[in-house]
């Protein structure tokens, strides 16, 4: 089929159709990325946590910028070579462009890999430590490894939330419970509804021993009753409410409103009216109490004889706030995401981590909000009170860092002076003050924890190459303290994945979408390279047009990266 205006311009636009089309597409792309950058600004302005400023290792981003610029140049060269009818040169330049795209994706992959294998743990006091989870435990029956990061709980009691319990969780718990005894802890009483008759029945009797299969049947039954009781009660309550409204409305309409005289002239949105209705509603329910199922208990409790159960930490969290629960190894409870609560004695289930950054910024932010003394609050942080060798090292690191930051503050004041009011012109950033970076850890170790001048650290820090993808545990073994953080002290744990915080969410969204554009662009350009020769022989102008249009897309990909690089890596 003859496609019109592929090479020759249309009279009304003065352009060939492919060019108009690609520009329309790029226009939509501009708005897409514009929207994403807008959300970045929103997230950053309204972040209620210290923004991870200049947190990414810069070198991969910088190298990738060079790669994309180089490929942008070669793609126009390839187009020019085609215009001049030189196929060999076109192949050379286009191959280089596609290799660039590949190398770009490799660096991106290295960067992502290190993000997904780097963890942060935040304590309940908002201290953050980052590092590598130490132990890679043997894979469980599902083939998952948990990296020294499992809930271990000697369970005495499980409280199932009837409306929401999740079968796979239950199966896992029952499997790990093995042959141990399961006993109902409390009665579960239901009321059968049969027309207007209500009949009580115990479906789970306290003290009864059940098999896992029986437990599942009873749970399913209890769930059904619970839901029907709720539905029934809701219906009765709604009817009572409707009746209450009708009664009050009729009363108001009558010449003498009696008890409701004061409501005359009000409408249904007035608080006085609502209060009156609520009162009457409650009264009506009480009067017709026989129509209500009051025993809609929403949970079923079973007792276990202290089985040790290990669970994926993604499934829930240990209870907090109860003073009895604050120490590991004492009575505690584990609340799963489906609202099932396991109670018992916590085992040794802390997170073991090789710490490569200690960050007090969030703690400082919280302390400042409450007008507390920042340094006192930092000293209270559980991270500085961990026993053992790792804990000693963290205390040593923090003590050294405090020496360095004082030296650095003095250096800034000395170098840049003070203003008329005696305030220093330049002050250290929050990162300088409250974060010990992995590079500083390496430097402090090399200096044997004795800092004498502010630039000691800079002179002893790892090189850019050594820190290519962030904290380098391989090149600096023994530098990073190994500690176990008790589970009860942990507020949040995550890899540097989108779940970490909004910064990493938007970082992965924008760079991921950009990466997809790189792959897509490389595929299109690769098609011209590998399957273009026939067209070059038959219709070289058409191929040149195609390459120009593909090139326009490629330049746009470069253009987006030109903004991504400073915004994510340097700001």
């Amino acid at each position, binding site marked *: 089929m003859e496609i019109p205006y592929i090479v020759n311009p249309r009279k009304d636009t003065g352009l060939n159709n492919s060019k108009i089309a690609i*520009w*329309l597409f790029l226009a939509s792309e501009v708005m897409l990325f514009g929207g994403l950058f*807008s959300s970045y600004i929103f997230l950053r*302005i309204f972040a209620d946590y210290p923004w991870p*400023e200049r947190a990414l290792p*810069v070198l991969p981003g910088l190298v990738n910028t060079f790669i994309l610029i180089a490929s942008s140049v070669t793609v126009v060269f390839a187009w020019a070579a085609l215009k001049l009818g030189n196929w060999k040169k076109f192949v050379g330049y286009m191959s280089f462009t596609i290799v660039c795209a590949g190398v770009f994706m490799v660096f991106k992959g290295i960067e992502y890999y290190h993000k997904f294998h780097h963890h942060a743990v935040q304590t309940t006091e908002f201290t953050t430590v980052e590092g590598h989870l130490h132990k890679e435990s043997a894979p469980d029956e599902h083939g998952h490894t948990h990296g020294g990061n499992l809930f271990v709980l000697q369970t005495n009691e499980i409280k199932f939330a009837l409306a929401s319990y999740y079968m796979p969780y239950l199966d896992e718990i029952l499997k790990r419970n093995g042959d141990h005894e399961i006993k109902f802890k409390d009665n579960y009483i239901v009321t059968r509804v049969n027309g207007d008759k209500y009949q009580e029945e115990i479906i789970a009797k306290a003290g009864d021993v059940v098999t896992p299969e029986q437990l599942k049947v009873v749970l399913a039954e209890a769930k059904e009753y619970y839901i029907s009781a709720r539905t029934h009660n809701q219906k009765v309550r709604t009817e009572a409410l409707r009746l209450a409204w009708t009664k009050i409305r009729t009363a108001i309409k009558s010449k003498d409103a009696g008890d409701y005289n004061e409501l005359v002239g009000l409408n249904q949105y007035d608080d006085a009216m609502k209060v009156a209705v609520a009162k009457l509603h409650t009264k009506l329910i009480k009067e017709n109490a026989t129509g209500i199922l009051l025993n809609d208990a929403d949970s079923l409790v079973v007792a276990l004889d202290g089985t040790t159960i290990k669970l994926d930490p993604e499934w829930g969290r240990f209870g907090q706030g109860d003073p009895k629960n604050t120490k590991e190894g004492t009575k505690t409870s584990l609340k799963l995401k489906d609202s099932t609560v396991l109670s018992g004695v916590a085992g040794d289930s802390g997170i073991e981590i090789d710490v490569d950054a200690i960050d007090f910024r969030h703690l400082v932010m919280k302390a400042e909000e409450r007008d507390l003394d920042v340094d006192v609050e930092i000293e209270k942080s559980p991270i500085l009170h961990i026993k053992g060798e790792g804990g000693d090292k963290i205390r040593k690191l923090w003590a050294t860092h405090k020496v360095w930051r004082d030296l650095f503050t003095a250096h800034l004041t000395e170098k840049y002076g003070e203003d008329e009011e005696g305030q220093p012109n330049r002050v250290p950033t929050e*990162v300088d003050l409250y974060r010990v970076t992995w590079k500083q850890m390496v430097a402090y170790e090399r200096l044997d924890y004795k800092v004498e001048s502010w630039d000691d650290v800079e002179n002893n820090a790892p090189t850019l190459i050594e820190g290519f993808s962030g904290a380098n545990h391989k090149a600096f073994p023994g530098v990073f303290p190994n500690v176990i953080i008790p589970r009860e002290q942990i507020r949040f744990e995550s890899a540097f994945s989108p779940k970490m915080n909004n910064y990493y969410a938007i970082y992965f969204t924008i760079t991921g979408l950009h990466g997809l554009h790189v792959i897509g662009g490389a595929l299109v350009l690769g098609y011209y390279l590998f399957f273009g020769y026939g067209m070059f022989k038959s219709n070289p102008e058409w191929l040149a047009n195609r390459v120009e249009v593909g090139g326009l897309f490629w330049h746009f990909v470069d253009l987006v990266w030109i903004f991504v690089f400073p915004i994510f890596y340097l700001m």
Partner: protein
Amino acid sequence: MANSPEEIKKAVKLYTYIGALLFVFTVITYLVATQPILDFGGHGFDYVDAIIGIAIAAFKASLVALIFMHLNHEKKSIYWIFLGALFFGVVLILLFAFAFLDPITFEGMMPEFGKG
């Protein structure tokens, strides 16, 4: 746009220069963000660094758009399409200004908006 062989040869030279310029400005962006001696504004990242960083990026982006994407001599219809998109893109980016209308978060901080 260049079409004759002479024009294209000339254009290729221009592309090389522009490519080199883009490299140089990438290095400048990096240095401005990392070297204390080139740290404008206060110590560390602040709004001055943000303005400088975005300005350099915008300059680089316009070089790419004007030269590599041939916007320097393009037909009118393309300008309309592109400027229209750019307009909406900028509007999207500036949408965050609406957030300052929130009187709870910005009470007292933005006197001209906050009293709403």
